[in-house]
């Protein structure tokens, strides 16, 4: 890709992680204190075998946990994952209305340990305060309390990590502070909360206590406009990244909401696993050699989750392409 230089920043495609052999419709991303990447797979009908992959950022598979099912440690419709400072991973399930907790520090050695690192679950279905209806996004604040967006209750609730209810705000609607099926959310360095307000085609910003501050994006398909945004991340400079799920792109804004860049997917290099596959499968490699237009392979299809780390890396779960695309942001030299 051509690097995008804008207002003192340069955005560049870095690399791609995974392929069909590793991921099935990844919908959630998490990072731990050691910068390991957790990829939560939604799976699909008839093929539910994939749970959470714990990865290095250069595509090393450290292990897998979770998986499809209703029993403890499994999930049916997983939506998001966060990892706390102690290395515990929290997975939300919007069908079972529960949060499952895993010890992600377990040594996997690349193995699928299924339920072996499962610790506990919490959550009760309902619309009362402290209950959950289709938990969608999750984010930890500085005190490591957990914000959860609920697409069924059109609100954000806050819990301690062991499930004690603290507060909630929001209701169904399109006004400031109201939501339609909210999805991903994140907390910035100042403790402010950003919520991907999916059905209202915007991202809303709130104080830690839930007071409305600002809105990003407007409905539409143009640069800087949003259609059904699914997730949001904020980097150390306060730049805001939004997966524009309905239009297969990622929008980047500055802290004030000014539009910086639109990313459409630039996977010009194959992931390590894909290169290895083609080395072993000559026939498929030959078929690729006949193709003259590779552009469709570069682009996002249903980008669903976005995370940023402290080193300028931007991770995007390219859900229907069964991979994670990684970008870098650098200061313009």
């Amino acid at each position, binding site marked *: 890709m051509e690097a995008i230089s804008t207002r003192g920043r340069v955005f560049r495609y870095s690399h791609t992680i995974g392929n069909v052999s590793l991921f099935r419709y990844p919908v959630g991303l998490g990072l731990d204190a050691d910068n390991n990447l957790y990829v939560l797979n939604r799976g699909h*009908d*008839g*093929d539910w075998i994939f749970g959470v992959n714990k990865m290095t950022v250069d595509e090393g598979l450290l292990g897998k946990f979770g998986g499809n099912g209703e029993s403890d440690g499994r999930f049916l419709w997983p939506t998001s994952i966060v990892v706390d400072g102690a290395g515990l991973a929290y997975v939300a399930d919007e069908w079972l209305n529960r949060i499952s907790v895993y010890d992600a520090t377990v040594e996997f050695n690349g193995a699928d340990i299924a339920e072996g690192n499962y610790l506990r679950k919490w959550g009760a279905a309902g619309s009362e305060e402290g209950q959950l209806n289709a938990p969608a996004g999750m984010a930890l604040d500085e005190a490591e309390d957990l914000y959860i967006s609920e697409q069924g209750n059109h609100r954000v609730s806050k819990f301690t990590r062991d499930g004690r209810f603290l507060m909630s705000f929001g209701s169904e609607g399109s006004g400031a502070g109201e939501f339609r099926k909210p999805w991903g959310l994140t907390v910035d360095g100042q403790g402010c909360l950003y919520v991907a307000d999916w059905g209202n085609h915007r991202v809303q910003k709130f104080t830690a206590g839930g007071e409305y501050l600002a809105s990003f994006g407007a409905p539409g398909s143009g640069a800087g406009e949003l259609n059904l945004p699914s997730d949001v991340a904020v980097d150390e400079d306060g730049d805001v990244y939004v997966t524009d799920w309905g239009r297969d792109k990622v929008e980047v804004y500055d802290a004030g909401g000014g539009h910086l860049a639109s990313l459409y997917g630039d996977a010009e290099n194959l992931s390590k696993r894909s290169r290895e596959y083609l080395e072993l*499968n000559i026939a*498929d490699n030959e*078929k690729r050699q006949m193709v003259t237009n590779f552009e469709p392979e570069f682009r996002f299809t249903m980008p669903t989750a976005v995370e940023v780390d402290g080193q300028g890396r931007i991770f995007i779960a390219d*859900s*229907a392409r069964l991979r994670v695309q990684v970008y870098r942001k650098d200061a313009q030299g």
Partner: protein
Amino acid sequence: MADRDMALMAHLMRRAGFGAARSELERRTAKGYEATVEELLDPAAHGVPPLDTSVLFRQTPGFRIPGNPENASGYWMYRMIHTPRPLEEKISLLWHQVFATANSKVNNPPEVVRQIEMFREYGMGGYRRLLVELAKNPAMIFWLDNQENHKDAPNENWGRELLELFSMGQGNYTEEDVKECARAFTGWTLAPTLPGVLYNRFPWQFKYDAEDHDDGEKVFLGQKGRFNGEDVIDIIMGHPATAQFVARHLYNFFVADEVQVPSWQDEPPRDPEAAAIIAEALVASDFDIRSTLRVIFNSDFFKDEEVWFAKVKSPTELVVSAMRLVQDFQEYRPGIWTIGMETSYQGQAILNPPSVEGWHTGQEWIDSGALLQRINFVADRVGDVSLPGVRDIVKRLSDKNVLSAGELVDGCLDLLGHVRLTDDTRQELIEHVSGWEEARRGETEEERVAFGAKVADVLKLITATREYQLG
């Protein structure tokens, strides 16, 4: 609201859609028959929005590019169950039956789904355009090997089926016409596409390869020229057999069961007068399917009670109409793909027809195994009083405190969509129900539960009758 008006509306909705619950029948009957026909024919012009798939894709991301057959059939099944534009799905089902393309060979579920999307887009427009789109459709090209149809080595599969199954029918062309037709479509092929082995499937694309096209002179159906594919389709459209062939398909699908397609060469149409009216409507409208359907739905032969329940419901019609009636899967929940699989258990694996001839229809839908599967599937749903559609039926029957056996049976027949039984079957049901304790709405929760269970039992009995298999 006249009872016959509602019954006629139920007939229209069975044919131009997948049946309708009582509340929809009441709404449409109040709106009027002709107005409903117009809305079904052109929903966009009447403010009926297309199905919003965004929440579906959020809940089931595997439906966006359905990488496996279960997702593909589940996705289409979901659309049929939930669409506010039922005729768009019904016409797609017709063309899927006529232009039968199976994933078993194509081995690319998203491409088979794209073919259905093409039917949805062009299926009610002009038949010529539909045939051109079909000839360029990647799944069809692969299905009938036209990517192997080369200037120096023609492959006749597509050319033969275009004439035999897609436009004119056997007996109206020669073997030489098949060969010339195939020559005209040389070079209609597929562009190289990224294999889907790494990052899911990428769309196949039609490619016209001029260098591989046989540009020589051809003689086709008595006409001579350096014909390309579209020229051949133009000649086909001008042949009288095409109007008759398409008319018979429309009659068979929308009016009453015909004999199987391979017998059409030998057997006259079931209703020659109606077939002629439809063929004339096709020619008069330049083969516009929407205009022709308007003629059919407003015709006397369509409204005639002789053709009500004169079709055996296909498995897809049976399953979708049951799901729409009981309003199952209104709330998103895991498992819609299992409903997509259900039709295959009953003998119609959608997106996977047994051959290019499609399925044998009418009586051939029914054998003892399929019948049991059909009855069990519908009975399980109408017997579930937790489903909104069944709750609505129970509630409507609760208007009266006490129902006689006759009232209970007739009420259930009405609310299932004006189902018509033979007098003998109806009497048998009434006698059976007469042996039960009186159907009393009651006042206590226990009595109401018992009443609901009784209604559900009658619904199950009705759906197990021979007549319920007809639509």
